[in-house]
């Protein structure tokens, strides 16, 4: 019995950071399973990968991450199809526009369901397998938005903050089993999610974000800001007292 090396699942691989990371992993020789809701977009990413010199063909699995009950069987099927598993990256995320006067449960719920609950459903499966295999890397794409309860999009901030806590718990739980858990916290990245939001501070391209994320996955770091300057900025922002923070309008 031998498990194939360098096999990864990327959940949320149809666009944005997930797609960019998938392309970069494929270029580095990984065997990939791409999971996302939109089959056509997934096929497109798989086709891009097929054109990369030396890359292994990617497998494609259409799935809505809010269909939580599907996850265990699908996870097993993918791991079986790949013939091994060393990395699971959760990159699915939604960030609907939320106006300053808007308190919309449906939107908040969608963010919690996709960003947080979908991640928990997938990464629990990964945790269970990697704990048994005594090895593997679990990564979640969080956000700098999870570091503070900003006035914009309470539901998004909540989902990202809770993601970070969940990943930290998994990390502490799995460390004795030789499993790495990486929390990625990008600042603004030019993706379909941020389209139409105008110019944002220190915005980078999805490709650049993917380059830094893959490098972080290969390092031994556990929490990674992308780009790194956000680590310094958020260190300051996290320490601004609440009474002051609410007056700053950020």
């Amino acid at each position: 019995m031998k498990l194939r090396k360098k096999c990864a699942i990327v959940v949320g691989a149809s666009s944005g950071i997930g797609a960019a990371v998938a392309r970069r992993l494929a270029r580095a020789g990984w065997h990939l399973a791409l999971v996302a809701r939109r089959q056509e977009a997934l096929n497109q990413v798989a086709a891009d990968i097929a054109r990369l010199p030396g890359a292994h063909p990617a497998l494609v699995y259409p799935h809505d991450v809010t269909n939580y009950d599907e996850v265990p069987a699908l996870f097993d099927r993918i791991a079986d199809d790949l013939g091994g598993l060393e990395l699971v990256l959760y990159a699915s995320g939604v960030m609907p526009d939320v106006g300053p006067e808007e308190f919309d449960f449906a939107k908040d719920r969608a963010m919690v369901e996709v960003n947080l609950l979908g991640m928990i459903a997938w990464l629990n499966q990964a945790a269970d397998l990697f704990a048994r295999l005594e090895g593997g890397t679990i990564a979640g794409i969080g956000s700098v938005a999870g570091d503070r309860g900003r006035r914009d999009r309470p539901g998004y901030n909540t989902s990202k903050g809770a993601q970070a806590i969940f990943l930290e718990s998994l990390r502490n739980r799995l460390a004795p089993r030789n499993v790495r858990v990486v929390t990625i916290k990008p600042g603004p990245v030019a993706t379909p999610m941020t389209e139409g939001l105008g110019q944002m501070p220190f915005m980078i391209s999805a490709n650049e974000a993917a380059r830094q994320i893959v490098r972080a996955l290969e390092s031994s770091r556990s929490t990674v800001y992308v780009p790194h300057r956000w680590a310094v900025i958020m260190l300051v922002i996290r320490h601004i007292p609440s009474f002051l923070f609410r007056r700053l309008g950020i």
Partner: protein
Amino acid sequence: MSVSAPARLDARTLLGPRHWARVEGWGMAVSALGHLVRPRDIDELRALFAFARETGTPVTLRGGGRSYGDAAIGQGCLILDLTAMNRILSWDPETGIVDAEPGVTIEQLWKRIVPDGWWPAVVSGTMFTTMGGCAAMNIHGKNNYRVGPFGDQVLEFDLLLPNGELLTCDRERHADLFHAAIGGFGMLGCFTRIRLRTKKVHSGNLAIEAFPTTSIPHMIEEFEDRVPDADYLVGWIDCIAGGRSSGRGIVHRADYLREGVDPVPRESLVLRAQELPSKVFGLPKSLLWWPLGLFINDTGMRAVNAAKFHAGRLLPVGAVYPQAHAAFAFLLDYVPNWKWAYKPGGLIQYQSFIPRANAARTFETLLRMSRKAGLPAYLGVFKKHRPDPFLLTHAVDGYSLALDYRVTAGNREALWRLCHRMDEVVLAAGGRFYFAKDLTLRSRTAARFLPRENLDTFVALKHRCDPGNVLQTDLSRRLFASHFADTGQQDP
């Protein structure tokens, strides 16, 4: 798949990701990737055996996973973790006889019987071994010279053969199988029930006495003086000190308290009185493995051993103090996960059993060889043994020395070479080895230390009980691959 496994065990997924698992030898120096399943009863076990036969998947039996090497791991095997079959089926506080499933641990057993004034007659240095594992390895305790191994306490057992047949064995029914499955390292079948006798005790405490010894011959002398009446004897040896200090150590003797000596046995026969302390030097014990790691190197262990020896010399001669059974018996559990201090490479234990006449000379040679190779053992434990009637027994009329070695990426090859050279010394002295500890023996060595006739009888039983060689471990493949090869016969 035509197998109808019980509903919980879906035969279609048994070889899939849901059951992929890496299992490790306890010493962390070896691991294997297999298909891990935890059967809960004989029906599930039987279905799994049927599945294994139909799919040609070898089966590895695993209990507490406390064997140091590769005795409970099997690359690519269906690994049957028996810890879910852990019911104490019956306990009679009048006779001290217990019926237990194979996954019952020594911890479960002593906690059940101590309040009634009984103690397991033979225990390992850890309480996390299981009945099935103890029987399959025929473990021994610090009282081996007095009461024999675990197998001598077994009255009967049920053994499930890979073909699904369940046999009840004792010293009369299937006596050959009784004496071969005990110590048969899981090669003949799976124990599903073990009937065991335990020892009546009249206090929860033992009377302990410690005294330093200056050399291995001196330690043997001290043992021999006490053998006629001591209930337990164990020696610790500083394996790093050389020259005139070579072989120095400390002997601990422990005796049961006779009836009436403990005025209120009820007070010490409660679980609270037996539980190991949760803190050492004010630190939670669960954290201790980490600072311990700072000492797991030649310099650190030299200092620790010297300190331990000199502290032992400060004890007043002849001082006897009480200690709870659990505290004396389960030294290995004193610091939880202490083995993590040996990460990342882990550790191996090299334990050899040498007839009395050759013991001192042989062990002195082993210590010298280790030091000379620059691979000193960090811990040496010395015990006395007696022969027993089990086919593959490791015990001899003599002594054993168990040596712990740190394994690193850099020393692994040299350490294995050292072990192979030591094997020759042990064989020349008429010595034996113990599968629960071993990771380094080679097949030709294994075939030489076991009496030819015993090995032939065992192989014949293996062919009879498991003609398809379904039951395998990485140890059985390493040592007996050619002996156990599939005979091509169909299961009866």
